[in-house]
């Protein structure tokens, strides 16, 4: 078949268009035991973008993340990553869960090595251990390689999970409230560490959190879910803050507080409507 100038132009233009889309969520709906959890979700994420998902609890943020990871499959619509439809989990997408990403019977190093071994079969054990140690150093845990998850604090465990995610060389990082179980100080420290690590890497991040300040500090965009079920995307907020960000200066900005209020209002509205629905508030009151 002769290749005309036009087909070439078509191909290249399509390629450059693809390049700007890393993850494309198209009309995705999900049901769980007959109940609709997510409805008609549409979202496009650019490569290297840091997208934070927020919403009242039980709105399906974690479910959404599981769909992107491939752990669950949408009932309608599809999710495409690099043009490929997600049909199941893949080591090309790393997931960091709230507090159970590591196998408790393996040391910190072994937890990373096991992932590397699957990803790079045939490589020598020594090589993989060195690679694991390199990534442990990256999260400032170079000396904790021989310790087991049960011997480490929650913050250290999350750092190891992040190290593992980066070690396997994924460019999509899915994080489900990764700092949710940590004390505020550790949380702030890990936020900074995460930003520093991904700064010079081409990693696209989807990050679920309950914490508005965490969202505003980390995200390029904040996606707010409506209270479900079924949940929909209620709002997408583009954050106008340049990087690198300074926590203190950020909090002093007008836009910061406007955005913060807007997100909190949406979260609270969701919370209140949910309580009403469950009959906890009965306006008018039927008497005791």
């Amino acid at each position, binding site marked *: 078949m002769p290749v005309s100038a036009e087909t070439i132009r078509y191909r290249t233009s399509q390629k450059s268009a693809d390049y700007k889309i890393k993850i494309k969520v198209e009309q995705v709906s999900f049901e769980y035991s007959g109940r609709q959890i997510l409805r008609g979700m549409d979202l496009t994420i650019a490569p290297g973008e840091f997208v934070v998902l927020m919403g009242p609890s039980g709105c399906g943020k974690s479910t959404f993340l599981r769909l992107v990871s491939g752990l669950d499959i949408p009932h309608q619509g599809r999710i495409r990553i690099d043009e490929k439809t997600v049909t*199941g989990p893949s*080591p090309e*997408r790393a*997931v960091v869960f709230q507090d159970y990403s590591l196998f408790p019977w393996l040391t910190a190093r072994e937890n990373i090595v096991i992932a590397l071994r699957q990803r790079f079969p045939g490589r020598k054990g020594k090589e993989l251990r060195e690679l694991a140690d390199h990534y442990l150093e990256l999260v400032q845990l170079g000396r904790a390689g021989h310790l087991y998850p*049960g011997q480490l604090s929650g913050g250290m465990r999350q750092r190891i999970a992040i190290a593992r995610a980066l070690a396997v060389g994924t460019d999509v990082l899915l994080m489900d409230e990764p700092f949710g179980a940590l004390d505020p100080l550790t949380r702030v420290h890990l936020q900074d560490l995460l930003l520093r690590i991904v700064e010079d890497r081409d990693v696209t991040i989807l990050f679920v959190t309950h914490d508005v300040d965490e969202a505003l500090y980390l995200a390029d965009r904040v996606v707010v879910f409506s209270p479900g079920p079924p949940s929909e995307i209620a709002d997408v907020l583009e954050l106008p803050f340049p990087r690198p960000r300074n926590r203190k200066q950020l909090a002093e900005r007008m836009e910061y507080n406007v955005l913060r209020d807007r997100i909190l209002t949406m979260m609270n509205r969701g919370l209140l409507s949910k309580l009403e629905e469950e009959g906890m508030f009965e306006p008018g009151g039927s008497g005791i």
Partner: protein
Amino acid sequence: MDRAKAGRRAGTIAVVGALLLLWEVAATYGKWLNPVLFPRLEEIFAALWNHLPDLFRGFLSSMSLFVPGYGLAVAAGIAGGLYFGLHPRIRRVLMPLFHLLSPIPPTMYIPYAIALLPTFGTASVFLIFIGAFWPVFMNTVHGVLFIEKSVLDNARVLGLRGRLLIFKVILPAASPYIFEGAGVALAFSFILLTVAEMFGAKSGMGYFIQYYADFSDYKNVLAGMLFNGLVILGITALFEKVKHRLLFWTRLRP
């Protein structure tokens, strides 16, 4: 801490000492006790000492039945348990059969074991195998089924497959259940070993006891029981040590 431990140990020693003293007093002065059935302590210990080479040979003979029987049962139980744990369709078909077979007391296989197998040794190994297999097998199946979803999610996310998945994730995750089954199997094995030896063997720890019982030589019977008890205690302690070591991570959970 250490003081409390020392106190407990002293208590144990005191109770054992008191029991031995009671035995000795009763055996020496108690006219109502048959001296043949209740020999004095020095006689028992002398019998134990004099028969140590005998008993040791009996121990080796017993191990030649116990090790293959128990070893094969643990290997087959874990392998089979993993297979049926990981293959839900075939498991659902065969599980009713397993539920039917597993509670049959292994001693009920004795007539068939003797009729079908050529030697006493193979029949005994088979009997120990049957007794030890089911607890290991059933516990392994349950251990695999009870693996937390989060563990499996992690394995799936990392794309773990094949040997890596089995040996680094499934097996360790199920290991608390497997050890529980293996512990029950160990107790069963000793019972079946002794039963087999007391009724059919020409050597072994159980045979030693039965042999001297036939002559009403109860000091040797008691020496044999004591030796048997110590061997079982030793093996069980070894088992517990291995279990403690391999399951140490279950005690780390904050």
